[in-house]
């Protein structure tokens, strides 16, 4: 099992990359809206991602179950 410090050191850069991909995907959506001149008729997928990030942004998760919470959250989107 990894120590707290080793956990951050090992996975920080990969998590950074994954967050950048999410940021880029949202930028891509905004650029598409700008180009086309209108939003998607159904923005629930985008809103679901933004809500998921609110869950992640809570600093304390005593049960260490962020993944489980996100899976339940994403299950609301078909």
């Amino acid at each position: 099992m990894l120590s707290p410090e080793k956990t951050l050191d090992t996975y920080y850069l990969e998590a950074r990359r994954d967050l950048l991909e999410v940021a880029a995907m949202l930028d891509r959506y905004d650029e598409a809206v700008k180009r086309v001149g209108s939003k998607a008729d159904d923005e629930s997928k985008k809103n679901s991602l933004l809500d998921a990030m609110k869950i992640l942004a809570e600093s304390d998760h005593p049960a260490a179950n962020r993944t489980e919470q996100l899976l339940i959250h994403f299950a609301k989107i078909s």
Partner: protein
Amino acid sequence: MQIIQPHYHAIARTAQDYERMAMSGVVAVCEPAFWAGFDRRHPETFIDYFAQISEFEPTRAAEFGIRHYCWVAVNPKEAENPELTQEVLRQMPEFLEKPTCLGVGETGLHKSTQNEIDSLQAHVELAMKYDQLVLIHTPHLADKAHGTKTVLEVLAGMDVNPDKIWIDHVEEQTIKSVLDAGYWAGMTLYPVTKCSPRRSVDILEKYSTERLLVNSSADWGPSDPFTLQESIVEFRRRGHSLQEAVEIYHNNPCRFLGQNPKWDIKPITISEE
């Protein structure tokens, strides 16, 4: 589709790379001088390294029908040894005359120290003196924005031709300043630490593609030469034409590198019957 890998550290890779690249359409790779993973102590080590990338490596690539070109420089990570840097610079003109050497690179900044800045200036001065192309490395991760700004400030104080300078490893926070200053910009696609294939296509769609180069990552660390093909697939799946892809992944390298007459691969046009 014919593809050019503008930034590829072949000596750190196996022949399997060449074989797979050839099968995927790569027709040429360009190998900038790189850090060896440890600080070299002797100028002679660089000289042997330059001989390896300018004499031996083209023969290894040719086994797979791939053209191999190189660049020579002292990597910024080794600029903290000014005596070594000066001695290598003194011997570099011999290699600039090699038939496959395209210019001076990769020089640039790593931690943006004064020694690195002095080395960058000396490399650029040498390149301008011998009318060579220049490939400039910008720092990784947290140092990138500051290091890129410093590179631009250093170049602004020198008598340079921006057409002949390629500033590499740009990302979303640095590309605009590089293009606005008139230089060529390169994106380097890494599995984790730099730009990604999808983000590279976002950047291609957002900015003019006239002075943009796309590189894969291919060195002795975690890297993947096929991130370039991933970028091409992403570009095409978004509806861009084959010719538009050719312009970016083949013709742009030809336009920049073709400023050196040793580069004889010409831009191509896909004809439709």
